[in-house]
């Protein structure tokens, strides 16, 4: 089933963004599973405090701690760990790691400095969140007892904010010109701009999400962040071919032949049923026509695109496995 190779062989950090409602968290989860099926140990991170991973995998809310999320049953497949990154906890961890600020850390908290630094001071929050991802990506065998990850999938903020979120350096530029936060931002930026990172954008074939994707790619490229692929999600089924769709839109479907074909399949094709099926088909054809014009725009961006179908029954574990298989097959993982 799976294609032999991934389109992004040297990439360790996969950042996934997308407009609200396009299924960015679902795609992140499926991508993490897809990488695991390639034998990799994977870390799936979220940074928006939404507990989206826990909901998708139907597990209790995740703490600020790496947890085993999905254990492989097949030989040769890797496991998926999950981490919900919280800026306040990341700051306290950062302080204790680099400054041994035991007591002072608590004092900072009491004075509202932690709250201040993580929710108010612009940019600092993003440095802390991406900094934690950086820490996980940098671990190697020299770190005792530390788990190392072959792939990290980051369920990142939405497309409208992604360039700002990743371009932590720029965000801080007007503020911190020197100091530890600034140097932290510098190292993070080095990883994010390197070939070890790819930013994937999730969209659906509708006008606003596609426009945002185009703008997002331009912003990422301007910030010299490596754009990976565009994942077109929730694609409608492709059962009706072009001539059939055109006939449906033009109202020239041969309803007699259709009635006969339905009858041959054992369906009681009453005139209202046929009329309803034709009307449903016409709606579908109209949507598909719109999707096709948007697809042209997506393809004109000039990055690899991947398509995931709409799961009529909703997203559950089985659905995630199907999406993961499809991502492997198409080469995103």
């Amino acid at each position, binding site marked *: 089933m799976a294609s032999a190779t991934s389109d992004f062989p040297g990439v360790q950090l996969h950042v996934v963004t997308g407009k609200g409602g396009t299924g960015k968290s679902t795609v992140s989860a499926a991508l993490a599973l897809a990488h695991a099926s390639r034998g990799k140990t994977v870390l799936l991170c979220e940074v928006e405090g939404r507990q989206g991973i826990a909901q998708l995998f139907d597990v209790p809310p995740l703490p600020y701690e790496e947890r085993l999320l999905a254990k492989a049953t097949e030989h040769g497949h890797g496991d998926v760990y999950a981490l919900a990154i919280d800026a306040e906890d990341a700051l306290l961890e950062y302080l204790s790691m680099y400054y041994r600020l035991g007591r002072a850390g608590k004092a900072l908290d009491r004075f509202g400095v932690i709250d201040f630094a993580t929710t108010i001071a612009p940019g600092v929050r993003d440095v802390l969140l991406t900094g934690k991802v950086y820490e996980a990506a940098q671990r190697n065998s020299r770190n005792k007892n530390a788990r190392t990850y072959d792939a990290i999938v980051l369920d990142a903020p939405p497309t409208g904010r992604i360039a700002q979120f990743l371009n932590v350096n720029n965000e801080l530029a007007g503020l911190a010109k020197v100091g530890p*936060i600034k140097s932290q931002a510098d190292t993070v930026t080095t990883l994010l701009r390197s070939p070890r990172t790819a930013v994937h954008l999730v969209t659906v074939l509708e006008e606003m999400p596609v426009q945002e994707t185009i703008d997002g790619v331009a912003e990422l490229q301007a910030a010299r962040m490596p754009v990976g692929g565009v994942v077109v999600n929730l694609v409608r089924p492709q059962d009706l071919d072009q001539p059939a769709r055109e006939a449906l839109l033009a109202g020239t479907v041969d309803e007699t032949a259709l009635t006969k074909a339905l009858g041959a399949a054992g369906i009681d094709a009453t005139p209202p049923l046929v009329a309803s099926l034709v009307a449903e*088909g016409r709606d579908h054809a109209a949507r598909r026509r719109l999707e096709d014009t948007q697809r042209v725009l997506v393809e004109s961006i000039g990055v690899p695109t991947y398509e995931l179908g709409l799961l009529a029954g909703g997203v559950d574990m089985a659905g995630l496995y199907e999406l993961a298989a499809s991502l492997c097959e198409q080469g995103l993982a």
Partner: protein
Amino acid sequence: MAARSSSRSNPRTNPRVGPMTAGHDPAPRLDVDALLDDPRRRIIVCCGSGGVGKTTTAASLALRAAERGRKVVVLTIDPARRLAQSMGIEALDNVPRPVPGVGGTGSLDAMMLDMKRTFDEVVESQASPEKARQILNNPFYIAVSSSFAGTQEYMAMEKLGQLDKDARASGRWDLIVVDTPPSRSALDFLDAPERLSSFLDGKFMRLLLAPARGPARLMTAGFNMVTKAVTTIIGGQVLSDMQAFVSAFDTLFGGFRQRAQRTFELLQADGTSFLVVAAPEPDALREAAYFVERLSAEQMPLAGLVVNRASVEPPVDLSPATAMAGYEKLRDSSDDASQVAAGLLRLHADRELIVERETRLRGRFATAHPDVATVVLPALPTDVHDLDGLRTIGALLNAEDPGSGAA
């Protein structure tokens, strides 16, 4: 990690609000026209998580109200480019402009929020010109006013307050429709102003001010340790920018808190109604549930729920299983009619499954929130980017059976 008191919005810290036992009545239907026509209704706020069609809903409501005789202004946050163009608001100048092509006896003005400019205007209105200039040029202010998560929410509320004041003074408008920022959570809209004003009034700000005010007795060991730590982490230059900002801003703090308080009261007022917008998806409905419960806890008036983009149930009785069985039989046939029939059967089966899932999700919401009047809007086959599209939505919001309108 020890638990900390935090101002972050976390829905789980609020108790659940509900009927305790499930009833059997279907959700009452939301009468949108009655809401729009009620002269006591002065403000309608559209809330919901990102990507559910808040902006389009707000614009449709505003247009319909105007064409039914109200004098309306709609504040949008981030409309699709073509929709903004067709409403004549693609120029971001923070001033309401008449929308061309509106029929009926009322009027419609529209504007797009310019967050930074709104913030600047607040500063300019509160401080002397010299002090205002000092603040506006401070690097820390520039960063807070353009990129602090929450500024957009705060400024949307600030603008609402201004529009309301204008409306009362000039009589130019008798209905304000507000779209809310595309936050990850609808609750951010209610929490952000409190967060920003508690920051501006917070302990840390007072700490930064202490040296400027100079009472040496405040410089305790704890304070020293904190300023030292802050300098270590973010660097001395940021700290001095912040101190300059804070001392220049000092006199404005009280004003900000008062303004936030006034806007909050405006949202609780009798003439205000909230409409929660959602899509028939688990995430969006969960957000809607949190929001509905929060409004009730804050005693803010909820008008109802708009479920956008619902799939329409086909008017015939053909189960997904039967349709799929037919599809399996026909899929390998070579003649065109069988291929078309197979495709249509498969589409029908998918549609039935989707309708079933959405109906179940909406049913769960209605059971947990039985008093929330609801209107369900069918997914349109095309995007909306002109006044005619907005009119169609306005009509569907009021159709007896909106489901049949889209077929």
